[in-house]
């Protein structure tokens, strides 16, 4: 009897561990890709041996995304090999199943599914490294609920501090929006100056780029555009250090942005949803190699 009771108690623990938790979990962020097995072979390639480059591209985002996928190798065209080429890949959005994200996957072949590369004119002790780069546009959206108090002395049924750290929930993305700090200052006439300070950080394995260089791949200063919305109330936030076009330079791993707006509030307090979104280009680079190249006459 006592073992039955113990089994019931343990079952309750396991069930409660599996249920709840609230958030949607994902094993990846944004766009990711991997070289497919033996495409290309990773140990060695003989001269004239045919091979192709196969890449499995994965979209963890909840929006359809276009990816500019480019490959090249580290050798000159004298030996042929992998000539630099790019393909535009349309990636469908990931699906949500329960509280898990099921990413969308697509296999891409270079040069094409039924064509191959080869190396020629190989000299002894030569090797090659195959490089793949994915360029894409992404949006990170962070949401929270903030409390804005009009009267500093007013008692509120919820915690509604004049200055506080706020929680944000965000989609899975390589660039994150974190550490939201809210401050409010009464400025009279039923208005409050709302100041929001948050951190934008690159936590992915790639680099932020200018979204306008995704197809051209030209080297430009990386920039991120930001939008803040106190939903249903205002989007007219003035942000610093953000330019008139709503973008800021992002040469570092993280940056602190401060945004302000006057808010009209006729009640002693309100709780309202807040949305902060940043749009950016992202580049993810992976290599495979060095792969040893075997000349035709070696060992002869």
């Amino acid at each position, binding site marked *: 009897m006592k073992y039955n009771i113990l089994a019931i108690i343990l079952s309750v623990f396991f069930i409660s561990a599996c249920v709840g938790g609230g958030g949607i979990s994902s094993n990846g962020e944004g766009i990711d890709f991997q070289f497919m097995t033996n495409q290309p072979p990773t140990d060695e390639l003989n001269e004239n041996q045919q091979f192709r480059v196969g890449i499995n591209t994965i979209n963890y985002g909840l929006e359809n995304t276009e990816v500019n996928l480019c490959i090249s190798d580290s050798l000159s065209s004298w030996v042929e090999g992998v000539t630099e080429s790019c393909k535009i890949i349309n990636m469908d959005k990931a699906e*949500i199943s329960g509280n898990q994200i099921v990413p969308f996957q697509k296999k891409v072949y270079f040069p094409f599914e039924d064509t191959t590369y080869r190396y020629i004119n190989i000299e002894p002790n030569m090797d090659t490294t195959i490089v793949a780069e994915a360029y894409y546009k992404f949006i990170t*959206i962070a*949401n929270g609920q903030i409390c804005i108090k*009009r*009267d500093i*002395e*007013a008692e509120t*049924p*919820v915690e509604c501090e004049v200055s506080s750290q706020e929680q944000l*929930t965000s*989609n899975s993305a390589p660039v994150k929006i974190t550490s939201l700090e809210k401050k409010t200052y009464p400025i009279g006439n039923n208005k409050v100056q709302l100041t929001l300070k948050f951190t934008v950080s690159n936590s992915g394995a790639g680099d932020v780029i200018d979204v306008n260089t995704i197809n051209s791949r030209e080297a430009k200063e990386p920039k991120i555009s930001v939008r803040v919305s106190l*939903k*249903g*109330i205002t989007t007219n936030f003035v942000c610093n250090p953000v330019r008139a076009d709503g973008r800021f330079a992002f040469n570092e791993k993280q940056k602190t942005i401060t945004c302000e707006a006057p808010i009209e509030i*006729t*009640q*002693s*307090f*309100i*709780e*309202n*949803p807040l*949305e902060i979104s940043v749009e950016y280009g992202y580049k993810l680079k992976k290599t495979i190699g060095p792969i040893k190249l075997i000349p035709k006459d070696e060992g002869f």
Partner: protein
Amino acid sequence: MKIKSSILIFLVICSLVFISADCGGKTPTGAGTYLGGTQGVTLAFKASSPVPTLQQKDTVPVKVDLKNLGEFDLQIGEAKAKIFGINLANFGLTSAGNYKGTPGILRGKSEFFTEGGTQTVDFGNLKYSLPISGELEKYTLRAKVCYPYQSKATVNVCMTSANLQDQTTGICSITEEKVAAGDISGAPVQITSITQELRGANQVRFNIKIENKGGGKVFLSGSDCTKLEENIENLDKKDQVVVIVTNPTDIKCGQEDSNKATINLIGNTGTLICYKDVTNPYVEKLNINLDYIYISETSKEVTIYK
């Protein structure tokens, strides 16, 4: 002989009963006029108005039930309710941000109506107009009720003075707590204690303890519910109760030195000091009315799915 002894035993028992009933000159306890209680008007969202979960495309009604669990009747529109704490425009409930009165009389409890009356305030329909981020968004709908109320007390007290102590024995005493069960009407602001002391040679003093027991907020009687939303008015009128002693009327209370005084509650409690000249000892009914505005709140979680 047998009959005589049984009559004797009966007489002894009756004597013991009479002696124990009036020995020591205690003040008679209250007549139990009221049902009592610490609630006034309660409010709650109706179970299905709104429903706790809805989809973004849904339009759902929003209503609150006001129930008068105290013993003071409220006339049509005297109890008012409103929705607050969210941007009402996002929910199509802009007009719900203004106080709306009950459509009918909100009767209090009484001997013949022990349940108390209920009135429903209808705020119209909720429809969420903003795009949902993610799969769902959660909100807390809050409502408050604002209403004028009166607490009544009918308490037996002992009228005596230092000069009259010899004459008071056997009539009444000032030593015990005067408030008894049934002495105070059901209301959120209560008189929780009345004690007495001798004052000078020919006066008696009353210490009247008043407490906010209803869990809500008290404001000065006559305050405008809408104006109480403004910070300055709110701070100015907060935690004040008007006390009127309707019997005896020649009593002097507080700084006003009359039968009417305004008391400030600190930490939901306040004590009003009153005194009266007494020329001969007797038991008196001390009748007191407390007038105030009362505000209570309630909330309901609503989840809106995409």
